[in-house]
């Protein structure tokens, strides 16, 4: 006995434009309401003394702290320093990781030669290399930038190599049937197929670069947002630490968003997964 299943078109099919707009609006509202809810809860917990307001200064106390840091120029100086370091380190590391990852993804020989060595280095916590970097590059910005670059490099390298290797064999075979040469294979098959995964890796490494930056600035620097956070902790100026933490979170988010936005320019065909950058 056969069964016939009938399905009426849903709202999405009947009103695709309206549905999409509504979903986009919902995503933005959800994306914004969670942090807003968090801030409200944070403020309430301090006002109602569920937590010690000295140890956990509420958002209302961060605003005067932010103004004070702004007025004495510390905030701008720290933010500019940190952003400069993270962008330089990220660009250096990402460029290296991209090139090496693509080459290793396409070449079995290179993979066989470099993969064990690279994996071994990948697992070393880069902060443990700090004394070596300090000896080689000195105590200035160079050490910080190179250490961020080294961290980003490994994350990008792995994601790029994996993305290239994961391109389905059928894609390559189709291109070979069309007599594509090595460059054409790379330009028209491997790169477009791997790009979505590559940009996921680039976005993850954007966050990692900020993590690394703060870690290094905690330890050696006398500038930057990491230093601002650490100084606030040491001096028991906890508002300063919290302002720094919020700024670092914001920079990390904006940085990942920027990489995502750049990614969207290159991979318009993939589905959207972000509330702020709708398709």
């Amino acid at each position: 006995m056969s069964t016939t299943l009938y399905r009426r078109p849903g709202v999405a099919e009947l009103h695709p434009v309206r549905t999409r707009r509504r979903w986009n609006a919902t995503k933005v509202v959800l994306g914004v309401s969670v942090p807003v809810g968090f801030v409200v809860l944070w403020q309430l917990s301090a006002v109602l003394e569920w937590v010690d307001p000295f140890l956990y200064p509420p958002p209302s106390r961060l605003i005067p702290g932010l103004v004070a840091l702004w007025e004495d120029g510390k905030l701008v100086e720290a933010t500019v320093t940190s952003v400069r370091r993270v962008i330089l380190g990220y660009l250096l590391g990402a460029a290296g990781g991209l090139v090496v990852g693509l080459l290793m993804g396409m070449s079995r020989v290179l993979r066989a030669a470099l993969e064990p060595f690279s994996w071994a280095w990948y697992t070393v916590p880069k902060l443990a290399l700090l004394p070596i970097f300090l000896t080689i590059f000195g105590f200035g910005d160079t050490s910080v930038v190179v250490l961020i670059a080294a961290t980003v490099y490994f994350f990008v390298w792995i994601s790029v190599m994996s993305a290239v290797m994961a391109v389905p064999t059928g894609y390559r075979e189709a291109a070979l049937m069309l007599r594509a040469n090595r460059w054409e294979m790379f330009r028209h098959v491997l790169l477009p197929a791997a790009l979505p995964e590559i940009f996921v890796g680039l976005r993850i490494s954007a966050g990692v670069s900020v993590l690394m930056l703060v870690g290094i600035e905690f330890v050696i620097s006398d500038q930057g947002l990491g230093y601002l956070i650490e100084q606030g902790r040491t001096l028991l100026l906890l508002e300063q630490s919290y302002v720094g933490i919020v700024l670092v979170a914001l920079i990390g988010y904006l940085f990942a968003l920027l990489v995502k936005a750049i990614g969207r320019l290159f991979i318009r065909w993939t589905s959207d997964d972000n509330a702020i950058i709708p398709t």
Partner: protein
Amino acid sequence: MSRFRVLGAALLLLSAAACGGGGGEPSAAPATDLGAVVPVEGCGPDSYVDPADLSPDRKIARCEAGTPEAQPLKEPATIRMTSASRSSSLAPIFVGMAQGEFEKENLKIEFSVLPFADAMPQLAAGRVDVSYGGTEAGLFNAVSQGLDIKWVLGNFVEPKAADLSQPQTGLWARRDIFSDPADPDLKELKGKTLGSTVGAASAIAYPMDKALREHGITLGDMEIKQLPAADLMTALSNKAIDTAWLLDPYWLTAADQPDSYVLVGGQPAGETLGGFYAGKSMIEERPEVLQAFVRAYIRTVNTYLDGDYIKDDKVLDAMAEGTQQPRDSLTRTPSLTFDWEIRQGTGESEQKVFIAFKTVKYADVIAEDRYVDRSFYARAVGHSAS
């Protein structure tokens, strides 16, 4: 209907939590009356020095060995103590523990490593009883923001501080930064870099500033670079910095190369820059326990740590165990002069430097009685005027 019930229950829970957090904290136990101060056998007039006496060559307060005598607590008590490191300046604690001086008072010490900045809020909240640290900017910020923390015991003084021909902890400079390396003119330090662990926020900001002022410049005339203590000597030898405040045992490396480095400033002679800090949980709620701790500390100093104690094997064993450093490393630096007292004005001088460098967020010096309590060590030696 059930949705409203859930909402009602949630609101009830929230309001209960709010009430619980706001006014339901356990009330402070009534403070124990420590009674009148009575003379202590073995602790004569030399056991207490007027806090206003800042002379570097004054006699450091001491009682006879084995005194003040133990007065065991009725009930065993535990003291949760923290320190940023297992420094050799904690010898009275390590030796006192090894020799059973705290046990004699029915006290047990639970020692853990925690940076002083992180320990202060715990101290004020009563989760830590005693912390070892320095008179840092963080302490004054904490006090100014209402945290109840008191400096109750000093740590040590540096009798040789005034004599810069004696290698010691202090401000070391590379000779090659001076136009005449053999005879450095310290005015030339203006604009040079200075490496320090906590920068202008540490207890040594005051002695650094004092040392520079003697030569017509201030700490503000130098560019401060903040680096970990272990990296300062490396930075100095790499010429990444020009000068550095080198702590034990790092100055030994500089002292081994007198042609390359020169000591340009030492600690303030005769002043302790740190020591032991207690919170409300000890001072107000368990003063008898703090008193027992202070008594055991002072007795340990009098009995084992007066003079060149580093040559005493049992002291060295206890220090090696406590600091977790090899014996050879401990014997490389000279014995410290422990001083449990707190000089008058040290905190004020520190604050003035911190205010100038804006590492504290207030402009007027906080009165000493808000962060110093000399009554415990005075009572331990029977100083009745306390």
